[in-house]
């Protein structure tokens, strides 16, 4: 538990405070931590356990069940490639493979510069625009393999 610094501790505690009066607060707390702290390592789960009385094993179970939650830090830009049935038949596998080649990371990994994380998603409910890709909430419809380098470049240029 000592591995977290004071600021991080305060941040996690503040998130837990928001749901102090909620009956089943776990999902809300974890969602907020994922969004604001960026990931949910076991040290953070221990604090949530202390605050909610829910065992760490149970929290760990939730964190490892939902692919939205992450045990390791995610990149600044999280690229989610939908591999649901509709996207898959529209060649989503080729799209994610292209992202993988361009960024030199496998799905689930984060690039060395900390900029990009590549996630394979199950159906995100955007079947009408398959194959769909989301990057930090922005949805890219009907993505083709050729578009992938441009999309990556557009984020790289924001960093320059």
């Amino acid at each position, binding site marked *: *538990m000592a591995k977290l610094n004071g600021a991080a501790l305060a941040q996690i505690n503040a998130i837990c405070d928001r749901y102090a009066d909620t009956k089943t607060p776990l999902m809300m707390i974890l969602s907020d931590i994922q969004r604001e702290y960026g990931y949910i390592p*076991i040290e953070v*789960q*221990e604090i949530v356990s202390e605050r909610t009385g829910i*065992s*760490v*094993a*149970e*929290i*760990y*179970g939730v964190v*490892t*069940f939902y*692919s939205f939650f992450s045990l390791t830090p995610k990149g600044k830009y999280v690229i989610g490639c939908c591999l649901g049935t509709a996207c898959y038949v529209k060649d989503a596998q080729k799209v994610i493979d292209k992202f993988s080649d361009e960024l030199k990371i496998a799905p689930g990994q984060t690039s060395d510069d900390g900029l990009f994380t590549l996630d394979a998603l199950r159906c995100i409910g955007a079947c009408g625009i398959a194959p769909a890709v989301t990057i930090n909430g922005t949805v890219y419809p009907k993505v083709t393999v050729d578009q992938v380098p441009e999309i990556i470049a557009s984020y790289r240029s924001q960093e320059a």
Partner: protein
Amino acid sequence: MGLIDIKIEGQPYKVEEGLTILEAARQCGYDIPSLCTFNHGECSLGSCRVCLVEATGARGLVASCVYPVAPGMEIKISSPKAVKARRTSVELLLSNHNQNCQQCRKNDNCELLNVAKLTGARENVFQGEKTPTTLDEVTPSIVRDTSKCVLCGRCIARCKAAHGLSVLGFENRGFSTIVGPAGNKSFADSPCLLCGQCVSVCPTGALMEKSEIWKIDQAMAEGKHVIVQTAPAVRASLGEEFGMPIGTPVTGKMAAALRRLGFAKVYDTNFGADLTIMEEASELLSRIKNNGTLPMLTSCSPGWVNYAEYYYGDCLDHLSTCKSPHEMEGAILKSYYAEWNHIDPKDIFVVSVMPCTAKKFEKERPALANEAGLPDVDAVITTRELGDLIKRSGINFAKLPDEDFDQDLVGTYTGAGVIFGVTGGVMEAALRSAYFALEGKEYGPINFTEVRGLQGLKEATLTMGGKEIKVAIASGMVNVKPIMDDIRAGKSPYTFIEVMCCPGGCIAGGGQSYVKPALLPNEDLNILDTYKEKRAAALYSEDERQAYRQSHNNPQIQHLYSGYLGVPNGHKAHKLLHTTYQSDRVRFK
């Protein structure tokens, strides 16, 4: 709830509304092959699909463990469709199971093997990838082998129900799902009490005690003076290992078996229990007299001590400093007994037979050794391991004569020691001696029935020596937590509190014989609700039969003090029989 009419296999029955098909069928005399405990709620995920049946009004086959009966329902257990479906469910479970059944120590108590036999599962029907597995053998107490886990979740439910902890949980998703402590860590790196309640409900060999039978073999081969001692609760359960009805007391046969197994001496931990009472009662009286820290908490249960250290490290001065009975006995064997018999303590090997997996961990505590680092106890085996050891030796347990424990020096025991094995027993034993100390005479009725009963939390107010003493008895950490929170807040109304880790006390310890209704066709249908009472009754009846009923009247205890230890809680007693605790244990490593 009212009765409703249903049909099973075409036969009419009246059953209670609200029951699941599985429970209703069981009451009507049908044991549907299932992986269920029949224990309302423990594993009611309905996900294993082993207990599928046909039922009118339902779409397709239904899982009888979760599907309720309805008026007019017709249930078919042995229709070709249901039989085939159950067999397929088991074959699918087996396809992702480590099938080393011949070497698995659980094979005579394995519910998966049982349903495989019952459903006629065929060999290697489904072959393919297997879930990556974890084998955790780090703690001295419990082995977790996920290659044998069927993901029923009973262990998780039990840990939560008994202790409010759920040290174990489901991890990951889909095919990668396993059950383990957070982060798939070892039990050693988790705030696990090592009580073994999870072991006692696991249907397969995924959770088992770590066997120490090899240590006994080794000590015997090395020619050591191997002494065995048995905890009170073991005698109330060991018979079950040999198919005897639950609650059959087998004290005499157990002593006979141990003698035939080649132990140099066969003693009863009850002597240690009597000694514990002498020390604990005098510690309590001294705390009361000298305004010491109160309430005082008992310290016999190693799972409870683990809990106190992990969760209430700031309250450890409330714990009695007394070692647990088998540790006291071990310490006396390696000092008093060794000197008396001119044996080098280093050549003595003490084996404890315990109803407990946490005792295996306890014996390795550095504080439970003498100044030279020689541990008080060298090996701990569970009731189940003793069963295995006896079976291995070819002894026909049922045909053994009843024999006594060895009676020399540290052999006699009182009824007060026997009842240590059930919740409230330590309290009652302590009260019998405290009454004598305060009133100068024995308590007339002998029994303090107000502290008996299997409830998780009991309290009583007793008047002794002109004073009112308020006591509490708790088992299962879920009942202990509020007591500890009061103590921490400085508002506990009690003087003395008995705490046992396992719900019901040691009779239902994590090292006792498995109580699995599916494997016990001759026991009552509600055996999971009654087995603790039956085992407790075995202990209370042995108490009634003893010549001495109070620890302070044990003549060998009196001799031990007059000839060796001096007074209870004195200098020598403190050195040999008391211990210290760790306030800085880290819950997550």
